[in-house]
């Protein structure tokens, strides 16, 4: 049995967010994922991914680069637990997580 794959990304640039309460959206289920967004010191946007689907690092990088380009945020850590969500679902969850950070209804 092959284990999970763990991926790390870091994106520079963007504006540093004022400290905020952690926000959690989604759930770890087949074809789904959970996303936890937290304040972090520094001026980077760091993304940690645990995924049950191995070998999709390049696609993760593309999806997360898009996310960072859309939101232009820094001073945050995004932690993801994934069970084979498609890129579109990942993008929607990331946007939902940012809505939760801004205090909009999840």
């Amino acid at each position, binding site marked *: *049995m*092959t*284990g*999970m794959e763990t991926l790390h990304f870091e994106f520079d640039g963007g504006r540093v967010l004022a400290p905020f309460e*952690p926000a*959690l959206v989604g*759930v*770890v*289920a087949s074809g*789904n994922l*959970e996303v*936890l967004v*937290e304040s972090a010191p520094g001026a980077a946007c760091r993304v940690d991914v*645990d*995924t*049950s689907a191995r070998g999709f690092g390049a696609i993760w990088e593309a999806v997360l680069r898009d996310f960072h380009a859309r939101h232009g945020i820094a001073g945050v850590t995004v*932690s993801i*637990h*994934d*069970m084979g969500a498609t890129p579109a679902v990942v993008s929607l969850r990331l946007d939902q997580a940012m809505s939760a950070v801004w205090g909009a209804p*999840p």
Partner: protein
Amino acid sequence: MNSASFAEMSARQRLAAIVDDRSFHEWLPPSDRVTSPHLAQLGVPAAFDDGVAIGRATLSGRAIFVAAQEGEFMGGGVGEVHGAKLVGLLRRALRDRPDAVVLLAESGGVRLHEANAGLIAVSEVMRALLDARAAGIATVMLIGGANGCFGGMGIVARCADTVVMSDIARHAMSGPEVIESSNGAGEFDSRDRALVWRTTGGKHRWLTGDCDVLVEDDPAAFRAAAIAALDVHRPMTLAALQQESMLLQWRTAIAGEGADAIELWTLLGVADARAVPDLDAAAVRVLRPAAVAPLANGGA
């Protein structure tokens, strides 16, 4: 459509809908990352809250402790950490004495990935729940998630003072697929949805006295039922347990060998039992046979 479906909500959405607005204070929140130590070895990602949110809140202004299981994560299965969070909540209730502990249950039972650790965890939850109940803290189960409440959590549910179910909720020991795989489709066809619901569903549990309050699949109805349960205590005296045991033996004898649910309802005294699957919760509420009412709260 004038209201949300309790069954289709996530655990955290349900929590927010049941307790007083913005009163939930979570213990061991996702950002604490108290996660399963077992799942990674099996190639399964952990959940930041191990599939259960626990904390304190107010309900109609009164202090309660509350937990909500997320059925989408591992079918709500109780793993080591998940179970320890429930046990910790119940033990803290013994110390802090809230008016009630309210559990929003949605679980297939023990999380098989964690085997013995999960089994031990569930038995500890039972013990802790019974301790809280014996100490006079109202224990309330709200069962309305799409995955039902089965296995060890099915037993935990029946340890509580009050069990609230919706008509589309399910509650049993062995789940339909488990029965079919061990005894064959002739014994129980898990793909026969009508059979599954009339054998494990809220209406059946209400009519046979296993569920105390039957509500519609509506968060407001669950909230109202939870508020009404804050002052319901069923002390476990020897006399009460003996009476319950006698009634259960009588019910088992009535059921005989292999009675279908509809046949059982008829034998228990439900008129026109055939119509039950098509009725809504309000219509079924008035049909409970007087003979089984003493098994449940508020029955007379």
